[in-house]
């Protein structure tokens, strides 16, 4: 009975993942080998979908662009997220205040993302708040065009959406650092940067790893942000898939999906080599 116990406890989890993850992904793989015409799927085993996909220079361009978005977003969210987590963990001392600040950070996310995306136009647009403010202050004379519908705005939106996914795991690991270690470091004569580099950073590595996985995966799979914030001017693999799906070219979309999945798995596997998230949580 006790030997069966863990299985009973994990059975619901296993069941959900089997039905809603394994089977669907398996289906994607199967369909990616199907043939299709303008109207229907033709069960078959053909490699044309992959051939068309990987012989097109656009595919490679799009994959590179996706990695580019993921890379920059990762660097920026890490840069900001680390210090935000640091501030919450080490500067803010009051537990209630800490919680209030955390919740304040999440409030904007309770407004539907689509509405927030629409709101970037009047915020960053030619006649938007930011440009009018800057012109009003005399900082610029002409509205800045690159603020909206550009790679800049895409990354800005990503940073806006995903920084918290970096903050939370880093904050979590920082809170687990034994404060006596920091005191010991100070007693041993370590300065701020030395403590940071030699004590805090190594100990927060797992948090950084988990946060990085979140951010990179979320950015790589995105399609809505890229489309809306670039004004349809930029592409990502996700967007390409959703376009193919929109045109009902399911096998092409599935082949592309398998490609994206492999890319994501490779990146994450590389990250997992650096941190063992199960042990370090």
């Amino acid at each position: 009975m006790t030997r069966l116990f863990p299985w009973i406890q994990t059975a619901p989890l296993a069941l959900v993942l089997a039905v809603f993850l394994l089977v669907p992904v398996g289906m994607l793989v199967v369909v990616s080998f199907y043939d299709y015409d303008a109207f229907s799927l033709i069960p078959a085993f053909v490699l044309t979908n992959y051939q068309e996909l990987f012989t097109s220079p656009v595919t490679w361009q799009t994959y590179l662009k996706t990695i580019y978005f993921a890379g920059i977003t990762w660097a920026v969210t890490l840069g900001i997220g680390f210090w935000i987590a640091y501030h919450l963990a080490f500067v803010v001392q009051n537990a209630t205040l800490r919680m209030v600040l955390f919740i304040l950070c999440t409030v904007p996310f309770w407004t539907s993302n689509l509405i927030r995306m629409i709101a970037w136009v009047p915020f960053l647009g030619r006649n938007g708040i930011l440009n009018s403010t800057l012109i009003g202050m005399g900082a610029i004379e002409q509205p800045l065009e690159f603020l909206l519908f550009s790679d800049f705005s895409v990354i800005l939106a990503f940073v806006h959406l995903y920084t918290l996914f970096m903050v939370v795991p880093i904050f979590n690991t920082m809170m687990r650092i034994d404060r006596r270690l920091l005191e010991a470091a100070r007693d041993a004569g370590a300065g701020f940067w030395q403590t940071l580099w030699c004590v805090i950073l190594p100990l927060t590595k797992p948090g950084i790893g988990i946060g990085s996985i979140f951010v990179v995966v979320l950015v790589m799979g995105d399609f809505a942000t890229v489309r809306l914030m670039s004004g349809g001017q930029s592409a990502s693999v996700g967007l390409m898939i959703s376009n193919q799906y929109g045109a009902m070219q399911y096998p092409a979309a599935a082949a592309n999906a398998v490609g994206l999945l492999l890319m994501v798995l490779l990146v994450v596997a590389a990250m997992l080599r650096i941190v063992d998230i199960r042990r370090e949580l």
Partner: protein
Amino acid sequence: MTDKKISVTRRGALALAGAALGSGAVTGFPTIWAQNIRNITLRQLGTGVSGLNPIAEQVKKDLGFTLQLTVTDTDAVAQRAATQSRSFDIADIEYFSIKKVYPTGVMQPIDTTKIKLADKIVPIFTTGKLTPQSAVAQGTSPYSVGFVENATAKTFATQRTPLMTLLPTIYNADTLGIRPDLVGRPITHWKDLLDPAFKGRASILNIPGIGIMDAAMVAESAGLVKYADKGNMTRAEIDKTVAFLIEAKRAGQFRAFWKTFDESVNLMASGEVVIQSMWSPAVAAVRSRGIACTYQPLAEGYRAWGSGLGLMRHLSGLQLDAAYEYLNWYLSGWAGAFLNRQGYYSAVLETAKAQMTENEWGYWMEGKPAASDIIAPDGKVMEKTGAVRDGGSFQERMGRVVCWNSVMGEDRYMVQKWNEFIAA
């Protein structure tokens, strides 16, 4: 077994109703089986263009059953209709989408002998020509995908048959929208979209089946590509069209590409864009905010689109009859007038005319100056006395349609190339 009893009486009632419909004896709504039909819910999938709550309310009032509307964007309508067909009873879908959806077998044809006003439908849908003299426009015209030979056919009939794929409900002639206050010169041709003066202030829409047609209109107007048939391009023609789009994109001509109606309104109203492909009610929406916006008629003519209601394959029995009741109702006037008042066109004109004031009909359909203020469905003043509709009358606008939104033979290749353009 009360269930059985009910179904028997239902069937009896249906037979009666069917007979009544067939004989054309039914003139008003609701009909004899009004009591049964009250419990019926028809689930309709469509875009926000015509998935309008006031229509559902009127259906409830006139027919007694519930019309449950699900709205989503153009691409998603086609996807959901094809992949989640069991979730819906009626698809309110565009003709170029039906070209892909119908052959998947998720829909059943509409028996036009059960549609009383079938012969009153505007001839664009039944013969392909607005008047016997006019030419059939290029592209996926509603006529070319409007009929099938029999109930199980998966290919479209080449001529009119008693079985329709979609019952036409709404259509329009599209052109470029401009901000007359910001473009600073008269706009006369599709190629003006590429004028370097509008660098960074132009936009086209990013729904491949529609966007490629706008692009083709521009390319042809600029003399860059000569098409044998814009609506059915060869690979070489697609290559050339996309190449010129990519060139313009790289040169920074476009500010953005829009996908939903709302985006086009916001782009225009905020001044991000001064010239772009646009839909008629979007122009009206910009204007209603006190911002000048013109739906500019162009020398080359219009690109048109049309939508209709299709029946999902699984509909049967009382539900199917309710659906036919609804289709008949759609042509009977109220809905047509409601859509005409928003700048669209209805499939049967006379019944809609009966529901509109002379002033409304004159402004929207005949190109006459408004004799008094034109009021929007929500009660706001839309156009002041004396205003004339951009492009003029129904005949002037629909008569100058040169192509329809399209799904081409080389669709698979086209979507690939379109993705290339977006990624470039």
